[in-house]
């Protein structure tokens, strides 16, 4: 009986001790994020339009695979939104002259480890419209809000499949609903999917810095405001995989990094 009592007291003691031991962690974290002036030199120059710029065009060689058509007969409200072209998946979206869209380009390595960039207050918007995600590929910063909207009068669930971030799976049964989520760790890519509509997928590149871009239909991208340095740039495509290039920039110069993917 006495032993049990001692055990209990000891347990309580250890518990207090342990929880105290744990407290410094969040304190440290807030330390890191509180002095924005000191840590965010680089990003503040970004905002002022200084720094170096890397631009490029992304192309593909060969024949782009045909996107699979989507059978939306189950969802009349979504199907009705496609009056001209029938809906198809967006696995490979191309533009004129073999331009490749929906490529996520980001700085994989080369930024100073100590650099910290605050997340913008404005969220990134992901819309569910016509039973498709708009956009299909997007970039977001750690801690920045991802505002998920439903413009369809049907049930969507939004499931994030991640390894370095915690997942989530929430539902929006009707139009006009909004949910905001954030990611806590860099990860390329977090996959979003709707299980009600198996064809709906989106890819979210989560970065600790603002130096990323997604190519549009002309295949071009621009990353500006970079501090001087030598960078490994990675271009990620849903189907064609990844490619990297090394670029060194100084001052406010502009450099080019083009990528060519082989269609497969």
């Amino acid at each position, binding site marked *: 009986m006495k032993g049990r009592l001692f055990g209990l007291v000891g347990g309580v003691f250890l518990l207090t001790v*342990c929880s*105290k031991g744990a407290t*410094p962690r969040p304190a440290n974290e807030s330390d890191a994020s509180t002095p924005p002036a000191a840590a965010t030199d680089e990003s503040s120059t970004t905002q002022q339009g200084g720094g170096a710029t890397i631009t490029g065009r992304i192309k593909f060689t060969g024949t782009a695979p045909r996107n699979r058509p989507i059978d939306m007969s189950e969802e009349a409200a979504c199907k009705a939104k496609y009056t001209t072209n029938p809906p198809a998946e967006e696995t490979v979206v191309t533009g004129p002259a073999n331009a490749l869209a929906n490529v996520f380009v980001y700085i994989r390595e080369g930024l100073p480890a100590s650099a910290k960039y605050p997340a913008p207050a404005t969220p990134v918007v992901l819309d569910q419209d016509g039973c498709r995600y708009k956009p299909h590929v997007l970039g977001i910063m750690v801690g920045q809000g991802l505002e998920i909207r439903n413009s369809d009068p*049907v049930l969507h669930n939004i499931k994030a499949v991640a390894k370095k971030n915690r997942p989530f799976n929430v*539902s929006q049964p009707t139009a006009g609903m909004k949910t905001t989520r954030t990611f806590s760790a860099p990860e390329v890519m977090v996959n979003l999917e709707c299980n009600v509509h198996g064809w709906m997928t989106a890819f979210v590149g989560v970065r600790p810095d603002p130096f990323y871009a997604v190519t549009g239909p002309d295949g071009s991208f621009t990353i500006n405001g970079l501090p001087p340095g030598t960078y490994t740039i990675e271009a990620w495509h849903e189907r064609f995989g990844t490619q990297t290039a090394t670029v060194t920039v100084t001052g406010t110069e502009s450099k080019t990094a083009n990528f060519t993917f082989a269609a497969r």
Partner: protein
Amino acid sequence: MNSRILALSVFLLPAPCSLLLSQDTTAGKVVYQKWCAGCHGDNGAGDGEGARYMLPTPRDFTGAIYQIRTTASGQLPTDADLMRAIDEGLPGTAMPGWSTRLSDRERRDVIAYIKTFSTFFADTSLRPQPLDFGREPGGGGDDALRVGRQFYDSIGCRKCHGDQGRGDGPSAPTLKDDAGHPVFAANLHENWLFNGGGTVEDIYQRLRTGLDGTPMPSFSDLLEQKFLTETELWRVAQYVRSLSPDQAPAVRDVIRAPRISGALPRAPDDSAWTAVDAYWFPLVGQIIRKNRWFAPAVTGVWVKAVHTGDSLALRVVWDDRSESPDTAWLAHVGRVLAVSASDDSAGERPASWPDQLAVQFPVAIPSGMERPYFLMGSASAPVYQWRWSSSSRSTAVPGLARGVERFDPIPGGGGTPVGAQAAYDHGQWRVVFTRALATPDTASQLPFRTGRAIPVAFFAWDGSNGEHGTRMAISTWYFLALDEPVPASVFISPVLAMALTFGLGLLVVWRAQRKTSFRRQQ
């Protein structure tokens, strides 16, 4: 100054903490390796030796993604959540309960060890917070169920679980988990197989938390957005619960076939069936003969039987998410075969197979306890079967099975044809088999007799789950007993017995009275 004290405390404190943890995890590792690693793998990745034979696959602990929690979507589970899964197991999966096999200490230790497989548990900013579920509101009844049904529709449950809740919704064939493994939307009529438990509270909690790693989302956001109230979400849980029987069906060994005076009910939805008792027989995967089958879709059959003295009608009802063959399920078949390809059976390409059912009897009613081999007999001792397939649904083929690989149809029914009528409705097959009790072919086609225990067994195939041939769900032998016609003596004897007892009683009283009056006279 403050930070210095903090730094100091950080420096001093890890010692007792890590000591405490290491004790737990070291002991936990021993328990884990002995009892858990066989399925969950040495490194907790859900890839143990047994994992190849399971669907759903064992939990991969490295991602710290857990289905059954009391925390919000995406959050870690609490220790109590993990303890519950270990204590009670996960119904509908291969995970058993451990509360009787492992001590409290062992189970606590193994939880500490399981948490070391993922760095998420070490992140103190991710401390799990159980949701406040409140309590099931009162005022149930039909009105509550009506509200529940209304929100079942409006929050889109039917998309996966189907209009009648049998897991046959339009999105059901496309469902997969994070690892790409096939996932069935739960059949809401079988709450005893719900992974997180089948009570109203359990169902409400799953609606609030979602089942992480699976397609089932959390509906908590809808409360914040005032799409529905907590009470209305509770009504959904009550409605879902109302779809299953009050108690998980108990297995009764003998199907009693009452004798009826009217016409034989040949149609699956003949009103005569409503008065007849239904018997539940669970089915399991055929894992004896290759190719074995570890992922059967049909969980069991509900059986009713009646006879008229001349003929027998046997109605078999079972839940099946698809009316096979159905090309919408081809991708699902591919996923199922991809998972099962890792077991020891031969791989094959997905195809659109039909649904099938077989009812099995011995060729003759055995006189002793000896019965043919339950798994479709053997070459020397065949069994008599009725086979039905969804590709020719109004016929049943009688024949002799000589082991799982060989079935010899009896041409033209051999003078004793077996009738079949089938209906498919919202995730459920209902098939009625009919046959004359007597047969001229007494050598191979069982003559049915009343008042005898006739062995019977059932086999089912869900074609849209990749099932055909030896890949099927099976039962063991049970019995069918046809009521004997009630002889007139049954009604007369009790009356006679009562009259006789009354007469004898009167005699005793009369004699006793005579004796007392004689003594008084003296």
